[in-house]
């Protein structure tokens, strides 16, 4: 560690450090490039903290195990990449409907299918929201640096705990495998949120009765609050129902508790936006290129700026709308064939032109490519 | 001292499957209107077969009501 407290750390390692700082004490996973280091480092570090690491037989089981672990009272995480992320979808939906907090890391690589296992991509932006069947809540965060990976892994846990919902931590190979300086924060400097527990007596506990904040307090299994948890549509007691009104209320609450609280976790960066006519929207690894591109364009007297969502889901409608009101053109740069841009278009196209900069060749989009797409020199 | 216990039922839980009827060694039970019916209470020897076999916990030997 240098004088200012920085160390050279890999993105995947930062994710584990953030998770441990947030209180993760249970990791279940199945190896897959380029996320494997997250499992390996967890295996190494957890037991010394009294935590537990288990390598499951596959990703279906990994996802199931972290839900079970969470229900037994631990803060839990798994990490995977595209193919494994697809396999986790069914149980991600289960965590959503049963409101069991957990963090799912997806370090994105080239797809579809086995694709390009060791190359960066951002092909799972839409899947992070729509991957599981049925309507469901979705929170996804995307870091663009090692430091941010640490800090937003902590936030991912906090959001999972606060909102009782699975949180997707959407990295990409660029960020996961790169090493740069990172400040290890002291526990005291970090805000840690723990799930709300019931304060009532066990016999008064109604497991799925929400408080005013739409979130029901959660009792871990084994502490005297015996209750039922089911992936069937259920009423406030947690037992299955097919009452139409109750069913509708449940699904809406699940989604609303996240969507209506978006102001609580609208994380983003604005760079030189004040007078920007050309706005680049980019996230994750690509946003670093975009920032360089903004600087280059500014040098060419093009009034460019960057809007960088860190909260990818729910979509930052308010912020993107504001950006679009002042912009002439928005360029959404992504390592996919155009995913986030669809949402940007939906919100912004009334106000300005929206264009797409895409690349799916296994390499990070370069600043030059962005500059060129926008019509700058170089 | 006579056994104080007696054959009891929870009729709403009974689905009339007839399993208890089949197992009852003394033909105490019958199915009537799709429910188990204690046709010959006096024949009951409190063997507990019905209780053991009933999938619905709808019949048992218990303290006098």
């Amino acid at each position, binding site marked *: 560690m240098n004088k200012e407290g920085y160390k050279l750390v890999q993105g995947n390692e930062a994710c584990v450090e953030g998770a441990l700082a947030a209180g993760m004490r249970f990791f279940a996973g199945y190896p897959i490039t380029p996320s494997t280091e997250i499992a390996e480092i967890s295996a190494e570090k957890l037991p010394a903290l009294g935590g537990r690491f288990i390598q499951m037989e596959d990703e279906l089981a990994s996802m199931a195990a972290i839900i*079970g672990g969470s229900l037994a009272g631990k803060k839990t995480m798994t990490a995977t990449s595209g193919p494994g992320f697809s396999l986790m979808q069914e149980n991600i939906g289960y965590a959503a409907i049963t409101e069991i907090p957990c963090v799912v890391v997806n370090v994105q690589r080239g797809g579809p299918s086995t694709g390009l296992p060791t190359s960066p991509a951002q092909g799972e932006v839409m899947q992070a929201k729509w991957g599981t069947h049925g309507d469901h809540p979705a929170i996804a965060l995307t870091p663009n640096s090692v430091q941010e990976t640490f800090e937003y892994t902590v936030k991912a846990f906090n959001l999972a705990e606060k909102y009782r919902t699975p949180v997707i931590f959407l990295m990409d190979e660029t960020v996961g495998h790169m090493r740069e300086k990172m400040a290890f924060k002291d526990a005291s400097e970090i805000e840690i949120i723990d799930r709300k527990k019931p304060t009532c007596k066990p016999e008064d506990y109604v497991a799925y009765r929400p408080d005013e904040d739409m979130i029901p307090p959660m009792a871990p299994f084994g502490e005297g609050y015996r209750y039922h948890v089911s992936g069937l549509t259920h009423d406030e007691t947690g037992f299955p129902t097919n009452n139409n009104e109750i069913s509708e209320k449940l699904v809406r609450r699940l989604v609303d508790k996240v969507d209506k609280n978006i102001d609580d976790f609208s994380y983003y960066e604005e760079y030189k936006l004040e007078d920007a006519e050309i706005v680049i929207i980019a996230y994750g690894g690509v946003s670093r290129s975009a920032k360089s591109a903004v600087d280059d364009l500014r040098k060419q007297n093009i009034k460019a700026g960057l809007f960088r969502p860190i909260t990818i889901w729910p979509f930052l409608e308010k912020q993107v709308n504001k950006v679009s009101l002042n912009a002439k053109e928005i360029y959404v740069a992504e390592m996919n064939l155009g995913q986030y841009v669809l949402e940007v278009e939906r919100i912004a196209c009334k106000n300005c032109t929206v264009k797409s900069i895409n690349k799916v060749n296994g390499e990070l989009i370069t600043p030059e490519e962005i500059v060129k797409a926008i019509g700058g020199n170089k | 001292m006579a056994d104080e216990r007696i054959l009891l039922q929870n009729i709403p839980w009974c689905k009339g499957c007839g*399993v208890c009827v089949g197992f009852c060694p003394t033909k105490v039970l019958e199915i009537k209107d799709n429910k188990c019916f204690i046709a010959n209470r006096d024949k009951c020897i409190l063997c507990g077969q019905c*209780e053991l076999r009933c999938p619905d916990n709808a019949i048992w030997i218990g303290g006098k009501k």
Partner: protein
Amino acid sequence: MNCNETTKKYYRANKLPHIWCPGCGHGTLTNTIVRAVDKLGLNKDEVVIVSGIGCSSRAPGYLDFNTLHTTHGRALAFATGIKFANPKLHVIVIMGDGDSSAIGGNHLIHASRRNIDITAVVFNNNIYGMTGGQFSPTTPFGDLATTTPYGNIDKSFNLCSLAQGAGATYVGRGTAYHAPLMQKLIENGIQNKGFSFIEGLSLCPTYYGRRNKKGSAFKMHTFLKENCVDKKVVDKDPEKGKNKIIIGEFYNNPQPEYTESYQVIIDKLQG
């Protein structure tokens, strides 16, 4: 609550009657679990019942423990997470034959292999009940089901051999008819510090029974009575096992348990 004492103590009686069809063996088997837990005097707060999806998997909802009704086939993976996160809990998993051995087969062999202290109880009715009577990996050769209209050509699993071969350290088979045996096997399974697998032959008069002309629920009980022989009997006289279903305790061989082995690592690193 109008019911017997064990029911009063261990059931969520306000959820009864359960959804099972008249005569379904699942009710009887559920009772064997309840009686086993009662016999062992476990603290209800420390008992967790986990299931997948299926008729059998509806059992936890009726039981007054910490209960978890998961996704089809994944019960053991969820249960592994629970047990590993809090090894103090007694974790019992209820699954159907399809749930445990079709879609859930991989988790079954891996939980067995790890020898994690979970007691798995399969309600084997030789059919997919919940979805209306398709064949399962335990449907006998030649039998009819909605997806084997011309007779089943799939060989069927011997679930106990499968679990034992994969590493389970306690293995036994009972039936809905042999309820006392079933209860005893479950008691032993819970007491085994490791992965215990208990198959309970159930009966589905609605789908399996009707289509294969097995008669009433009572008749299906009679079939179990007449066609099952205890391993102990067969061990003495193999002739008696001919063309019979063997039941009883098959394997009881404690070995290092997973969460305990992990605790050793924790203790070493923390110590």
